[in-house]
């Protein structure tokens, strides 16, 4: 096989690995942004965080929110807001760090954080 074709195939392999690793990272982030409380499950996103902040600013201490299953769940706003906000920061900061590592990786072993000899 010519050197050029070999290089192209190597690059294809790198792209597939990179895409799959990015998707795996997204899956992990999504899973960590799911939060269950009082028998309900919430997906932590910007809309939920902003809505809770709005409630806090209006001095509302307890509220009924619809969870992922559209079930009404009563929550104490302040502690709920603190929890989802800290989780959101924790998870997205981790995501950012991992994503940056992936973005800069130019070889399969770098994507996977492995010794060059392994791959």
């Amino acid at each position, binding site marked *: 096989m010519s050197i050029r074709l070999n290089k192209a195939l190597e690059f294809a392999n790198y792209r*597939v690995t990179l*895409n*799959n690793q990015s998707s*795996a990272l997204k899956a992990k982030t999504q*899973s960590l942004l799911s939060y*269950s409380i009082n028998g*309900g*499950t919430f997906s932590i996103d910007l809309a939920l965080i902003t809505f809770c902040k709005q409630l806090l600013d209006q001095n509302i201490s307890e509220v009924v929110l619809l969870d*992922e*299953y559209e079930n009404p769940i009563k929550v104490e706003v302040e502690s709920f807001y603190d929890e989802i906000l800290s989780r959101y920061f924790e998870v997205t900061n981790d995501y950012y760090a991992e994503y940056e590592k992936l973005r800069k990786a130019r070889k399969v072993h770098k994507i996977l954080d492995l010794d060059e000899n392994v791959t």
Partner: protein
Amino acid sequence: MKMSPSRGILMFAHNNAEIDYFKLAVVNSLLIQKHLGIKDITVVTDSHSYAYAKKELGKKFIDNAINNIIFVEKDINFKRNNIRTFKDTSHTAKNLSFYNLDRADAYNLSPYDETILLDADYLVLSNTLNQCWGHNNELMMNWKWQDVMFERKFDGLNRLNDFGITMYWATVVYFRKTDYVQSFFNCARHVRENTQFYKELYKWPGRIYRNDYSFSIAAHMIGGFVDKAIPQLPTTLYKTFDTDDISSAEDAQTLLLLLEKPRSPGDFILTKWRGVDVHVMNKWAINRISGAMLKYVSTTTKSKTRKSRRKKETIAG
């Protein structure tokens, strides 16, 4: 005084001629202890599978991982007739017995008020399943699933047949002991006992009996013949297939997976899978890394025990 409900994990482990399901259950139990912090683990097995594991791993080691073992008798006829092709990547395929008959009895067998029923090959690598405890939904299963090789698509796994009902996966099931849930399991048992009739009615493919089929049909019936009537678990079911392999276990929550390329069977790409639970269909692959996995989880358990002993001594001192 209000008693808090008992909560625990239930797994089924019946070995066949090649696959040591009981060992998989032991590995998974230690992972469960580490990631979910749950000690109440019940494994339903048969005397032969247990005897083999006792010889291989030792009774003390098993007792350390699993605190409740329930023995059942195997139905020999079913064992001989329910034969499935198991693959160890595309390079090796073997026809072996697939003993999964008693899973529909989970409701009666579970000693807990709240149970998470797991496949022994569903590796718990995170604490996500703890979100189930005390949930408003008394019964939850997965119909959302995702291949760990994200590019690969298997549309045939979304429904029992092309025009059929939604396929639920019996890999992970959360349930509370209530009349409704009991009816669900009674229904699944009814399907199991009348396999031929329901196979014709719901037109599932192939000849083998799978709990995914009986649980999907029970979900459809008990949900009032409505699609997706039983709620999805708070987590997606991530799967690797039997054509994939595991290269190594990096630590107690990281696996280096070899995933078969969709357009090039027998060729693989590597993926690092960290901190998300995963269903591994290639049982040989788990058995190959089980030694390393056991080392990681039992080292952590041992060092934790040592630490707490030291702490106690300090307090006592």
